[in-house]
């Protein structure tokens, strides 16, 4: 379908023409998909051959721009050393965690970045997972721009529901690097439910079973007259179809009498994936594994394949059962189960799901595309407006380290977001003037079994006896599921506030340097965004004054009214320029010159209220 972008006779305001389109992006482990919605109908952006999936693969040759998608995937067999795939699995992971993966990590680790973020050695380059994801997003964005014929600069990007704060932050940073303003990070199952719910007007309890390449998510939602309320979510951020491929590859290597090592893992995985895909509609597969030095022949029957992957599928069902049980819901209460993710094409997965839920799963919308459809619908809702409402939850509990390495939970998982919770702590030594605050995420009791998100220090606590200080730590999680932590000593007001950057996230400087280096010249992009923000604020100020004039203009003399109207015109003029300081200055001037007007309005309001009360007193 061709998308009509310009409405006939449409004359957008000058400051709106600069805004590009807003799309929905499913940034997947194996494939990414971009979609665009208008009038609550979403369309997947496809290439000339009708293919909507963009492989989440990037190839970095010594010179030239990175290759993204199918072109990059084709290089996997010939030039595996410059090709990166499944990078989503590494988002938000620290260097130590990656080192622990050992040979299962098909990349060489380089020295970490300044902020502690892991870097991979790809050919001659050192790249963070954030930069690699940004390259995928850039490729997807370009595809949309070509298809839609207009700039794309904003997006709803989906993340696994079970992504922790570090991985969400990394995803948002990647979008920023790619020149995309993130309108909202939406959980993948929630996006899928949105796509289904709006399509079918479904009501009641629904489960979303989302098995992708690298992550498993299970969400329970209530759908009711346009409200999509997430009741509970569970999952495993490191379980997916990639595990199936690994199990097959390991078997093939064992048949060759070898281990799955770093030199051969990429080629072996390509063959494994072929076998897996073949076995979704055939009963057996045979083929060759060519590792350069020698070719070997392998056979795999569906029964053998299913035996290899059964433990992984079993684990997904256990997670689903536990999530339902936590929410006090039994499978028979569900109106339906929505399947999401390419790995749900595997027959054994469908069988187990149907068996556990007692009904066949819903697959009306392509499981590979349903998340992008939901994301696009949400992008439209956020930019154009809509009656639907997404109420999401925090996937994993947030807490603080206390004495003895024990976690004190501050916000429990499955709490609706946005949320803000505070907890009070005290000093444990006389005269203690600083307190280390260690923020963690996870369900376990001990700090070392949870995800460490950030450490910071509240200092300047005046000397007091142990236990006298009252340190209030506030956790605020916004609608994207991103955390900000602030700490305040209550008796003196000493405050410390940080946006939680993962302990091994990008520093602001690194981010700035990457933005400068990026081909999109995002520095301009940043300035443009600040200008837009200043204009939105100026527009608000003008609208507010005009609304007040409509009610209370009689409080002003003709002169005063003329002066205010002049100032409004001045603000309007400033807004059509690209001088951000001028826009801000004009808006401030308007505020300043309407002060007296505001005071008179307040006086009138108070008089009116008093008169109303007097009447009520007489009447009562």
């Amino acid at each position, binding site marked *: 379908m061709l998308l009509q972008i310009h409405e006939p006779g449409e004359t957008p305001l000058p400051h709106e023409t600069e805004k590009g389109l807003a799309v929905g992006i499913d940034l997947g482990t194996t494939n990414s998909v971009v979609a665009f919605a208008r009038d609550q109908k979403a369309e997947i952006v496809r290439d000339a051959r009708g293919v909507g999936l963009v492989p989440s693969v990037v190839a970095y040759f010594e010179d030239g721009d990175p290759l993204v998608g199918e072109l990059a995937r084709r290089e996997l067999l010939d030039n595996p050393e410059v090709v990166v795939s499944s990078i989503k699995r590494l988002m938000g992971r620290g260097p130590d965690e990656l080192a622990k993966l050992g040979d299962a990590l098909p990349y060489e680790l380089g020295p970490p970045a300044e902020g502690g973020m892991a870097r991979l050695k790809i050919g001659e380059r050192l790249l963070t997972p954030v930069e690699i994801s940004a390259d995928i997003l850039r490729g997807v964005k370009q595809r949309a721009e070509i298809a839609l014929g207009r700039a794309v600069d904003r997006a709803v990007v989906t993340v696994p529901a079970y992504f922790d704060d570090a991985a969400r932050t990394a995803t948002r940073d990647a979008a920023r690097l790619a020149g995309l303003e993130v309108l*909202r990070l939406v959980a993948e199952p929630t996006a899928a439910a949105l796509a289904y719910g709006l399509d079918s007007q479904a009501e009641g309890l629904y489960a979303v079973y989302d098995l992708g390449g690298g992550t498993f998510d299970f969400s329970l939602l209530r759908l009711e007259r346009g409200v999509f309320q997430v009741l509970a979510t569970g999952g495993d951020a490191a379980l997916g179809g990639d595990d199936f491929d690994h199990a097959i590859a390991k078997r093939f290597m064992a048949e060759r009498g070898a281990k799955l090592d770093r030199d051969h893992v990429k080629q072996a995985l390509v063959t494994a994936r072929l076998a897996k895909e073949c076995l979704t509609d055939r009963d057996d597969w045979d083929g060759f594994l060519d590792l350069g030095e020698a070719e070997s022949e392998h056979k795999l029957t569906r029964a053998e394949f299913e035996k290899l992957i059964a433990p992984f599928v079993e684990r997904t069902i256990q997670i689903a059962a536990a999530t339902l049980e936590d929410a006090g819901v039994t499978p028979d209460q569900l109106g339906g189960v929505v399947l999401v993710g390419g790995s749900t094409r595997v027959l054994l997965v469908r069988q187990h799901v149907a068996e556990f839920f007692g009904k066949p799963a819903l697959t009306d919308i392509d499981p590979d595309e349903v998340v992008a459809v939901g994301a696009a619908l949400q992008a439209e809702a956020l930019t154009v*407006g809509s009656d639907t*409402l997404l109420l999401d939850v925090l996937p994993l509990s947030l807490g603080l380290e206390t004495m003895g390495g024990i976690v004190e939970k501050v916000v429990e998982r499955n709490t609706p977001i946005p949320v803000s919770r505070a907890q009070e702590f005290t000093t444990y030594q006389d005269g203690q003037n600083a307190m280390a605050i260690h923020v963690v995420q996870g369900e376990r009791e001990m700090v070392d079994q949870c995800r460490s998100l950030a450490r910071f220090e509240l200092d300047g606590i005046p000397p007091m006896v142990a236990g006298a200080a009252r340190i209030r730590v506030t956790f605020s999680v*916004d609608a994207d599921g991103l955390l900000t932590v602030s700490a305040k000593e209550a008796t003196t007001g000493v405050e410390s506030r940080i946006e939680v950057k993962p302990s091994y996230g990008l520093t602001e400087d690194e981010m700035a340097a990457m933005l400068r280096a990026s081909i999109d010249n995002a520095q301009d992009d940043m300035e443009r965004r600040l200008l837009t923000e200043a204009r939105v604020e100026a527009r608000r100020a003008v609208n*507010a004054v005009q609304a*007040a004039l409509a009610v209370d203009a009689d409080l002003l003399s003709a002169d005063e009214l003329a002066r205010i109207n002049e100032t409004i015109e001045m603000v309007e003029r400033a807004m059509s320029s690209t001088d951000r300081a001028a826009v801000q200055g004009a808006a401030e001037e308007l505020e300043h010159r309407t002060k007296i007007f505001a005071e008179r309005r*307040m006086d009138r*309001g108070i008089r009116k209220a008093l008169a109303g*009360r007097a009447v009520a007193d007489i009447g009562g």
Partner: protein
Amino acid sequence: MTNAPQTSASTNNGPALAVCWSCKGPVAWGALFCDTCKAVQPPVPLDHFARLGLKRDFDIKVPVLDQLYFGFQRQLHPDRFAAAAPKAKQISQSQAVAFNDAYETLKDPLTRAAYLLDLLGEKVEGEGAHTIADEELLMEQLERREALMEADNPAAVEAIARHAKVDAEAALSALASDFASGDKIAAKRGYLRLKYLVKLGEEARARRARLTLAR
């Protein structure tokens, strides 16, 4: 007089007026939006019942609560302010936080009971909470936990979980009538009993899961 949030805060000392942050004109205290310029207003300190427009009562119909909550979030959720000025965005977030907090507290009978007892001056949770020495309750608790620890097969654990569930339902209706008759002390005792029954049920489920996995 309705108990809508807009009016629930007017005091006898005079009209409850605030200044709209956007147009700087008068706005009713506790109003969600300015009548004049339509700007979203920050949340005011209200108890959770008043915020949602409910009577201060333990007996809440959850579907009613849901509808009230959805209605407010439809107007105030940050998704509605994605294109708004930064200050309006921030205010919408604090409104959504306040309504989420109210909803979460009142939705679950256990947290609702604790919150209501706190409002009634009988704090049962957190700092300054006084527990009551109830020998009978303590003994019951000890015996049941012991039985749970000794249960070594999923069926036996399941029986304990079922028993706890039935008792929890009875405890809940007893608690509701204690609140209805205004017996704070009985309500407090009923709350503590319900709390441990719910916890016992959770522990039983966790134990059953462990035993099932071990097989």
